[in-house]
């Protein structure tokens, strides 16, 4: 009974984006691409121009005044960012503090998982790449990056906003008001994975960039660090090639970090929403809800579940890769080998 309820709930969550997206507008042609894009994008107006989609103005959840022309409004991704931070901070501090202050010193299951990762990263990443001497200084950054991205990725797998859309649609139907006018409506469209947003990822990558630059400067001094771009012992004409390549490599590192994470998370979610969108398309092309449900049971739900499992793996892997690369870059700046 319990399991059946769980499965029902999961299925409900899986198809909730469709209901939220296309809710009720029976006479309007549903556009799966639009739904997919608005699922992944931040909260903004999206308009179709020819065959492509263009981002319109931001439709924030809470509009804040602009400072120096920068819009600090709370969009869905800012909201998710706050949520991810809150979950990361509270859960990890709770687990760690409970573990440390416990008398038995025996970790519970969640703490065991955290400890396993912490020890694994320390032994295989931090000590390996940064070295015994300096790793303590950079360990908090690597750990925080890992858990922050991990929570972000996993939170993206829970269709919070889509489920809110589902609740909003049926709730407003129940009390007989237009679902566009409810207070929940701004929360109901898209924007699931905060780690699929290049702005956030670029912020994290910027921190990584400054981390490895600071690490190098701390070790070799403000001049010595930059001198490392020109490895000694080369014929002088080679420096004209090597130095630009090294500098370009350094500048590209945050960019690759950003795009790798964003691309992975976005791709997974697009695949997820497109498979889920099959329901919509089947229902539309056969003009019957029954066919849509059949399609859902035959294709969408199994495929979506597979993609979700894949996404769990990818989410974990990408968090690890981001943390690993941060450690590698810091290690490269600290232990210069020529």
């Amino acid at each position, binding site marked *: 009974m319990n399991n059946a309820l769980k499965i029902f709930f999961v299925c409900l969550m899986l198809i909730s984006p469709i209901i939220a997206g296309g809710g009720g507008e029976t006479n309007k042609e549903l556009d799966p691409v639009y739904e997919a*894009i*608005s699922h*992944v*994008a*931040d909260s*903004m107006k*999206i308009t179709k121009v020819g065959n*492509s*989609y*263009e*981002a319109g103005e*931001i439709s924030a959840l809470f509009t804040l005044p602009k400072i120096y022309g*920068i*819009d*600090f*409004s709370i*969009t869905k*991704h*800012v909201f998710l*960012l*706050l949520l991810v*931070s809150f979950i*990361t*901070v509270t859960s*990890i*501090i709770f687990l*760690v*503090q409970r*573990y*440390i202050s416990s008398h038995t*010193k025996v970790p519970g299951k969640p703490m065991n998982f955290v*400890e396993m990762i*912490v*020890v694994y990263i*320390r032994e295989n990443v931090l000590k390996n790449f940064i070295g015994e001497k300096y790793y*303590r200084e950079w*360990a*908090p*950054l690597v*750990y*925080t990056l890992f*858990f*922050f991205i991990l929570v972000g990725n996993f939170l993206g797998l829970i269709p919070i906003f889509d489920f809110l859309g589902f609740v909003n649609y049926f709730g407003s139907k129940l009390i007989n008001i237009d679902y566009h006018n409810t207070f929940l409506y701004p929360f109901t469209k898209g924007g699931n994975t905060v780690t*699929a*947003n*290049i*702005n*956030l990822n*670029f*912020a*994290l990558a*910027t*921190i990584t960039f400054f981390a490895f630059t600071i690490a190098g400067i701390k070790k070799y001094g403000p001049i010595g660090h930059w001198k490392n771009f020109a490895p000694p012992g080369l014929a002088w004409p080679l420096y004209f090639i090597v130095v630009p390549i090294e500098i370009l490599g350094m500048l590209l590192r945050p960019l690759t970090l950003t795009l790798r994470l964003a691309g992975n998370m*976005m791709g997974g979610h697009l695949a997820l929403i497109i498979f889920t969108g099959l329901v919509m398309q089947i229902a539309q092309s056969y003009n019957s809800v029954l066919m849509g449900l059949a399609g859902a049971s035959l294709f969408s739900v199994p495929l979506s579940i597979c993609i979700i499992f894949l996404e769990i793996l990818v989410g974990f892997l990408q968090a690890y890769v981001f943390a690993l690369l941060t450690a590698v870059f810091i290690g490269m700046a600290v232990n210069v080998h020529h």
Partner: protein
Amino acid sequence: MNNPLFVVSPGLYIWSLVIFLLVLLILKKYAWTPLLDFLDQREKEISDSLAMAESAKADLEKVKEESEKILNEAKNQGKSIVSDSKQKAEDSANKILNDAKAKSDEFVLDAKKKIDVEKKKAIKEIKEEVVGLSLDLASQVLQRNVKDEDNNKFVDSSLKAINTDEAKS
């Protein structure tokens, strides 16, 4: 290019920077540093207790060796004690046996002497008896009484003869 999936929004960028740095600072202070210290401490405790166990093992080995040594010594001592006491017992048994033998020999000798004396006595008595009887027989045969003097003379001479016979034998 105005792709909705790749919108550059400085607001979110700055939000992310600030919030992530806050998260980093909070977690560094309240989670990672204490956790790493705790792990280090626990690892140290484990290695310490392992070292302790190692030394305890070595101690145990030592004690075992010592106890074995003591046991061996005790065994040897016991063996020597047993063999000593065996020797002693044998000696004393031999002594007792010898004493008993000597005593019994003495007894036998004594008894033999006594028997000899008794024998001699008896023989002498028998001889006297025999002489008396033979004298009686002889006087009856002779039908006359030999004079006492003669009688005595004869008795003495025959006793002498017997004695010499005896001495010879």
